[in-house]
């Protein structure tokens, strides 16, 4: 993000978050008109069976792709920072098996795990707060030096970190509560994520100067590496360890969505077979791409671009379609 928008990256992040908020509203409108359906059955109803099924399959492929990308980025970070000699298949198979165990418990277990583990975010924030004492607000200035064009180009990069919001469309019907409550939850969640990102970006942008930041691949970790607590010399290692949990929960979410898609597609209830199947597919993809940075980046590009289609374009297409269908349904019921 910084590479494009330089010190104004945080503005891009903010604008990106606002744009996502609009899309979230759209998703809410779509999901509200199908209170009983998951994303996959909504596809069937909106695009008719012949177009809906392929779209569902593409969605599943997209989720698998994101899952593999998460695994790859995570394993790369692990091999660079913590375990340089451990082969890729060990870390990725471990992570995937942990996630499969988590997902096989169903949505309730996932929800409970996430609420419990979200307490750990407090610890991450604490670590970053330690770093803020070295803040130099000077580094943020001059604001808008690189111009609005660059800022908008930065949005492109910033928006990717928000792509997880598509979850709300998949599991909307599985959650209890009124529509307004759900909307509130979605909005609050998004606000929290935005604040957390903003906080992190702010901390790292103010810690490193503009010219330094170009050279640093993982600013937060490098930032934490410089600090020492009286008992712990290297905070970054603990940061990574807790970050692992966040990565695992994200991967578990994608695993859940993909397996839910498969079980909806084949109309079979026991999800556990599908979970194992998708876990194996993700594992194979991650091994195939490997830790080579150029291949990861190519893969990253493919996934990010398809992310625009699946997380932005398709939901936006769904909004007018769902209005149309709802009106038609109303017309049928009244006549």
């Amino acid at each position, binding site marked *: 993000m910084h590479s494009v928008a330089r010190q104004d990256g945080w503005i891009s992040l903010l604008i990106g978050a606002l744009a996502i908020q609009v899309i979230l509203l759209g998703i809410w409108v779509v999901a509200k008109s199908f209170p009983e359906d998951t994303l996959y059955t909504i596809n069937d109803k909106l695009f008719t069976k012949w177009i809906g099924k392929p779209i569902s399959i593409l969605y599943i492929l997209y989720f698998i792709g994101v899952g593999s990308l998460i695994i790859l980025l995570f394993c790369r970070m*692990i091999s660079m920072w*913590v*375990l340089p000699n*451990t082969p890729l298949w*060990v*870390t990725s198979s*471990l*992570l995937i098996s*942990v996630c499969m*165990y*988590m997902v096989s*418990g169903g949505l309730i*277990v996932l*929800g*409970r*795990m996430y*609420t*419990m*583990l979200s*307490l750990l975010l407090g610890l991450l924030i604490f670590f970053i707060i330690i770093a803020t004492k070295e803040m130099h607000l000077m580094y943020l200035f001059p604001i808008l030096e690189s111009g609005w064009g660059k800022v908008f180009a930065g949005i492109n990069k910033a928006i990717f970190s928000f792509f997880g919001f598509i979850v709300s469309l998949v599991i909307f019907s599985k959650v209890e509560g009124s529509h307004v409550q759900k909307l509130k939850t979605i909005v609050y969640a998004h606000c929290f994520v935005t604040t957390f990102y903003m906080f992190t970006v702010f901390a790292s942008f103010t810690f490193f100067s503009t010219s330094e930041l170009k050279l640093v691949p993982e600013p937060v970790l490098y930032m934490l590496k410089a600090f*020492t607590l*009286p*008992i*712990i*010399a*290297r905070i970054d*290692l*603990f940061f*990574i*360890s*807790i970050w*692992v*949990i966040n990565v*695992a929960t994200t991967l578990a979410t994608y695993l859940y969505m993909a397996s839910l898609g498969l079980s909806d597609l084949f109309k079979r209830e026991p999800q556990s077979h599908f979970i194992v199947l998708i876990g194996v597919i993700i594992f194979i993809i991650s091994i195939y791409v490997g830790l080579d940075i150029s291949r990861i980046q190519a893969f990253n590009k493919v996934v990010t671009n398809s992310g625009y289609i699946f997380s932005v374009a398709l939901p936006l297409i769904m909004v007018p379609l769902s209005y149309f269908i709802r009106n038609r349904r109303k017309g049928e019921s009244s006549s």
Partner: protein
Amino acid sequence: MGIFTRIFRNNRDKLADRHMSEPSGEKEVQCSRRLSENVEYILGAFHQTNDLKIRVLKKGEAALLYFESLAEHEKIHEKIFAPLEMGHADDVFQLPNAKKTSDLEEAVRTLLRGHAIYMEEGKKEISQFSVTSSFGRTPEEPQNEKVVRGAHDGFVENMMTNINLIRKRVEHRDLTIKYFKLGKKTNTNVSVIYMDGIADPTLVQEIETRLHSIDSDMIHSPGHVEEFIEDQSNSPFPQMLNTERPDRVAANLVEGRVAIMSEGSPTTLIAPATFFMFYQAPDDYNMRWFTGTFVRLIRLFSFIIAVGLPAFYIAVVSFHFEVIPDELIIPVKASINEIAYPPIIEGLVMVIIIELIREAGIRLPAPIGQTIGIVGGLVIGDAVVRAGLVSNIMVIVVALTAIASFVVPSNELSTALRLLTFPLIVLAGTLGFIGIVFGMLIILTHLTRLHSFGVPYFAPLAPLSLVDLKDTFVRLPMFMMKLRPKDAHALKPVALDPSREWKNRDGQNQSKQGSPGEKTSSTKDTKQ
């Protein structure tokens, strides 16, 4: 017609004696008029066992049968012969403390329960007298759940004494007790105890159906019952609370949980249980809440040490030396440098040695147990370091872990924790911090997935319920625990109505007293 229905009604309304539930559906054998045939039948039913005593009375016209191993001679005298001698009754059949039947099978069952039966030639009736002898110890404080302050009595092997201890503590009509006979050969009495109107009826129903479905020859302890009725057998964590303390059972009953007792064992099972219940001790509620909270936190901290400390240490020395502050690196490195084995082997060996010492000491008489402790702990610990097999820091770490694992008030959970150390050590030895995080994640997922009788096991942390945290990590003052914990699914959520109104009243009084004073002062002010 009217008379007929009245007779019918009368028959139906007639009170029947209530006693422990009989295994129903058994055949009924009417006794005959001939005494010798009856005696023959009963002897045959018991396969001519030698401790069945037959006393012939009235010159061969009557017989008194009882197990001399089950009945008490004094009671026989007191219940049967003394009233006759005193002239209260002319005949044994007229004694009021007898229970009458004409079913020989029932007589066989009551004989087994320790009753004496009396039969006479030419009568189709049997009198049964309860003359059971019981040898019980006094309700002493259980060895494994001692408290500093509070009640010092504990359950014994006799179920009636145990229920008596509970009824004394919960003097309320809602306390309900249901008996079951389990075990086809042992016929063990098992009782389910709950507060009607507080405990969730579906929970009670569920426990009953699970108990009914047990079809085993023998039930010898609550642990046996536990294995049959618990939700998830493939788990190291205990899903029902074991206790021998009446006060603990009473408190849990009032919270809306269900207790299961069985004859012949002082241990009571409490369901549903959550993970954090195993960290509560009765002592917590006898202390001031500051100290209670402090002790709770220490205990939960011990959980982290017991599970994670050896793994953490191994991960640090084998992967992440840079985590240690600079000043410590040299001493730590120096102590490890001369050890031939990698830290993971060191750790595993030491943890296993501690387990050996513990297991060796547990069943030996106290004096020998102490010797084992000294030999094992001091001699081996010292020698192993000097011989250069294990580093001295590893000894410190493992000893701390052992101590921490004994802090847990429940023996079952403490064993489970020590078991969990091993996989974590292996993960830490192979993948460092990342391995530990994965291991912890698996444990947490497992805890989240566990259910005990339909109640999430890791409540109130997952699902997160901030209100219920008041009695888990901390122990807030009693008057703040207004609601029962949600995890018990109690019918009545409110456990406590405002109990400290006097404080408000005092405050109001003060303000009333204060306000005229203020007025006067203000008037003074205006005057001035």
